[in-house]
Every structure is written in structure tokens, then in C-alpha cells.
């Protein structure tokens, strides 16, 4: 058994931005408590922030890319998945124009991933069709 690690981070649920301390042992989150040093929550947490973390370790997480073949989603390699998406979007762009492609971005992922998402749409695709629930 490994010794627990304590990782400071920010909650992944609502927009309040509570600071949390994750107790991690053997690569599993064992416990979460509010970070007393966090300016937003000063140690408090709600039921979601403190207890609804088991999804990270769920057996039902997606662990491999899937591609539809003969009507069914089947496991594939990253290489095939990447190439399929790149080819398909490339053909659609060439045939119908960049604005035939649209992106729904993610309000849950990091600023860094969101920046790359819009750079992908504007740089690689050439379209501003990018939106998400962040408009609300």
C-alpha cells in the first residue's frame, strides 16, 4: 500500500470554484475535503464536491476510441480514429466549405483545452461555428 498524497485542486462541478484537497492512494481518490486556504470556500464543500467523485474511477469510463462500422460502434486505434476524423472533416470542408462544420465546446474542460478547441476551429477548419452552453 502506498502512502496517501494530498493534491490541491479546484472543484469540477459548478462555477463557484471551490478549492479542494484530494487524498490519493494507489492512484485512486480516497477522500475529498475543502481547502481551508481557498479564498472562495474557506474549507467548505457541498455534497457533489465532496462525494461525487467516483466517476473518475468508474469501470464505465471510455477507454478506447470507437468507430462506427456496419452500423455498430467498434473499438479502434487512436491512429485510425484520428485519420478518420481528419479525412472526413477535410472532405466536408473541401466539398461544402468550412462552415459546413460546427463545434460544441466544453464548459467543463480547462481554459487551455478550450483555447486549443477554438484554435482548431479557426485555424484548421477555418470556421467560427463554435459555441457551447457558455453563452447562457
Amino acid at each position, binding site marked *: 500500500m502506498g502512502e496517501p498524497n494530498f*493534491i*490541491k*485542486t*479546484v*472543484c*469540477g462541478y459548478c*462555477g*463557484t*470554484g471551490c478549492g479542494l484537497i*484530494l487524498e490519493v492512494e494507489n*492512484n485512486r481518490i480516497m477522500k475529498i475535503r475543502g481547502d481551508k486556504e481557498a*479564498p472562495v470556500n474557506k474549507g467548505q464543500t*457541498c*455534497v*457533489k464536491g465532496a462525494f*461525487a467523485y*467516483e*466517476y*473518475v474511477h468508474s469501470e*464505465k*469510463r*471510455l*477507454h478506447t*476510441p*470507437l*468507430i*462506427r462500422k456496419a452500423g455498430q*460502434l467498434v473499438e479502434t486505434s*487512436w491512429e485510425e480514429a*484520428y485519420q478518420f*476524423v*481528419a479525412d*472526413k*472533416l477535410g472532405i466536408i470542408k473541401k466539398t*461544402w466549405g468550412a*462552415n*459546413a*462544420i*460546427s463545434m*460544441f*465546446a466544453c*464548459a467543463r*474542460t*480547462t*481554459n*487551455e*483545452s478550450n483555447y486549443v*478547441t*477554438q484554435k482548431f476551429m*479557426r*485555424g*484548421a477548419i477555418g*470556421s*467560427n*461555428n463554435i*459555441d*457551447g*452552453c*457558455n453563452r*447562457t
Partner: protein
Amino acid sequence: MLLLFGSNTSEAHPIIANRIKKAVKSGLKMIVIDPRKIDMTKVAHRHLQLNVGSDIALINAFIRIIISEGLYDASFIQQFTNDFDELKNRVERYTPEYASEITGITPEDIISTAREYAEAGNGMIAYTLGITEHHCGVNNVFDIGNLALLTGNIGKKGTGIMPLRGQNNVQGAGDMGCLPNQLPGAKSLTDDAYRLRFETEWGVGINPIAGDTQTRTFDKIESGEIKALYVIGENPLLADVHMNHTAKMLKKLDVLIVQDIFMTETAEMADVVLPARSWGEVDGTYTNTDRRVQRVRQAVEAHPNVKEDWEILCEISTRMGFEMNYEHSEQIWNEIRKLAKEMYGGISYDRLEKEYSLHYPCPTEDHPGTFILHERFHQEAEESFVKAPFVPVDYTAPLELPDEQYPFILTTGRRYESYNTHSQTRYYASGVKLKQTEETVDMHPEDAERLGIENGEVVSVKSRRGELQVKTKITDQVVPGLVFMSFHWSEVPTNVLTINEYDPISGTAEFKACAVSISRIKNPEESMPQ
């Protein structure tokens, strides 16, 4: 003084609710404006239980009272605003009596609230999706702005307008340019000089014409103009209005790409599904509801075959001929700091390590961050000062009102222990006792009695767009004629009922109001869905 508008704070933002409640204990006067008797009303000075969607009638009446009783901040208006006369004319017909007819609130309560807000000295308004998820969501927000400007309640401590945002990085996603009209740093795409900065750094021309909103995208799928959709960490099939229509549109696409952590209902329809890392497995920053940038840190190693969102996008981008390569999230953040320097230039990972969080705008390393926005409204106006215009608006009723066939108004929202389409909150740590583990339609005792419905009975709920079966929860949280449901459980897909009408400016759908009928099921056993 706090006006809490369309915000079920204790369920959707529990820690903010705790802080508000603490402030109430030390003397804050809070008035809750909400169609439901939500938990926050327990500590409120007053609850204005308005009819769903009647916000503008109420706010215009507040404005009219404040103007007619001379309670507005005349010198502030003269110095910092435009179009006061237009506002004054527009609200003229919103007498307390007229507003009372529309909102269902007594003229006395409307008058008292208007006076209390105007005379509070410091008045703050916080709102959530009860304001924005209407066909007139933008007008609702304009009118909140009108009210704050009228009384000078902006740009200083204890005042202002605070939208309470519902997701960990919903603020950041928009700020980073994941909007059809906006570049990173929340600046308009049409700003040539600003766009050039990105074009130069990226080595590519950027289309200067704004793209489509999410709701408009569905229209364009229908017309055949949009052929491909790439969805990252969203479950639009369950989360968007009028589910049967959404499903039809997703099927119509040439290609649907879904990048997610679980096999969501939307992913089931995809042509390609790309497995992404989740919270706990990623590194970077989130921006919270008050513009606070904070570090999110990796706590556990992800499964070796799942990847970070940005990594997946870089691989596809490079294969499409637009090369993107990053080693780690800090490298991306530093590119953001360089390009959107007015906002983030001073927010380094090093500083976040030491200072925990920083509020943007923070242009330089020696800048403390901006805790309060719009302070210029209380400083000597420079010549370059752009005055804030009042934007007068009129009340418009929800687009689908109850009638004989569909006599109830359905309004939707969240419940405390669950989150959005429930892909994460299905997995609580063991031993946690949950209050609500399945969907209910919440209805008033009088309605239940009239229809002969018992608490817990499975009923049929129908709208013009769809139908479902759900257990009843009899509660006086709602008023007669109003029912409430959340959209957490795929077993009871509430958005099969909601209406696909949108705000013309924001494109946000009217999740908060549609007409439904409720009826008993004769043989519940036989008609339960499989």
C-alpha cells in the same frame, strides 16, 4: 441589500448560498425573486413569487417607481449614462397595478422592493438561468442592467450584477473564444487589429464573420448547410430543448464526432467516439463565476489509452495540415497570456502557485488582478469615457402559454445532488445518503387533489413535442398551475417536453417555460416504458 433573481442558489451553488446566508445573519437584506418557494426564501426578507417569465414587467415597474419617486442617482446618470429619457418613456405604462396583473405580485410588495433597493446605499443583484433561459433572456439581462445603472449600483464594493455561473469552467470557455463571435480574451472577432494578433501568431488568416450559435446549428443541420458536428464533453441530446427534434438532427449529420469521458446518449449516436481524460486527470486552469483564474491539478494517472482534450485536437489539427504541438498545459497558457495580454498577461502559473487565484483583467506580473469591475464609473470621467446606455425593453409573455389542452406551465432546473445529464453524479462515494435518486414532477397539492393524483404516483406528462412518464412529488414549492422538473435522468428525459424557441440575440433556448398536460395512467403496470 441583495436581489436574488431566478437563482436556486442552495441547490445549484451551495457554497455561494452558504455565504449569502452568513451575510444575511450579519445584516444583509435579501429579497428572493423566483416562481418557486426555493430554500433561499427561508432566510429572505421577502419572497416575490412571480409568474414564470414575467421578470421584465417587474423590473420595469421597479424602474418606474424609482424614477417617479426621485430615488435614482441623478448625477451618476448624467455623468456616466445615455438614453435616460428613453428608459423613462418606456417604463411609463408599467404601473405597480399593471405589473401586478402580469407578475402576480401585489403592488405593495413591488413598491416596497423598489424603494428598498434604491435606498439601500449598496444594492447588488445576483441572477442565474431563471433570467437567461427565456426567449427574452437578453432583454431580462438588459433590464437588470438598467436597474443597476439607474441607482448607480455598479463598480463599487457591495454593488454590481453577478451572474452565478453553473459549470466549473463555463466562464473560461467563453473567455477563451469558444463562442462564434469572440476571440480569446473575450474580444470581438470583428476587431481587425486584435484579430491580426492571432493571425500573426498562428500563421493563418481568420474568418472575420461570426459563426453559428448552438441553437442556430440545429436549424442549419435541418436545412442541410451543416454536415459535420464535433461535440466535446456535452450531451446535447439530453441537455438541449425538444429532444425528439435534436435526435432527428443528429441523425441527419454526415458525421458526428463525440469526445467525452462516458458513453453518453449523444455518444451512442456518434460515428467516432474519442475517450478523454476527466477532472482529476488533467492539468490547467479554470475561471470561476467571479473571473477568478485558479489552477486545476492532476491528482491521478489516467488510463493509458485516454488523452487530454487539447492533445486529441492537436493530433487531428496537424493531420489536417494546421500543425499544433504543445508539451504541457502551461505552454498553452503562456500563448494565451501573450495574445490576450490585457486580460491574462500577469497571471502566470508561478503566481497562481503562490497567490492561489487571480481575477482577470490582470495585464502585468505586478498587477494585483481586478476584484471589482467597472470602477471607472466612480472615478473622474476621462474624455475617452464611453457612457453606458440604458437599453429600454418591454415585457413579452412566454412563447407557449397554458391553454385548455396543456393547462400547466413546466419550468426546469437542477436538483442539489445531481448535475446536468448525470453522467458524473451517478457515481457517488459509497455510504452517501441521497435525498432524490430519480426524477419527479413537482406539483402543488391543490392541482394534485383536483386531478386525484397521489404523492409518488407515476403520471403522464405531455407537451406538443413529446411525452413521458414520471413520479409525482406533491410540494408547495410550486404554485397551482406550475410544475417543475430537472433534466438529470435519462430514464425521464425532460427535454422531450421543452420548446425549441430561442432568444434572437443570444440563441439561448426557453428552457424555463412551456405548456404541458398531466394525466393519470389507467394501468400503470402495462403502460410503463420498458
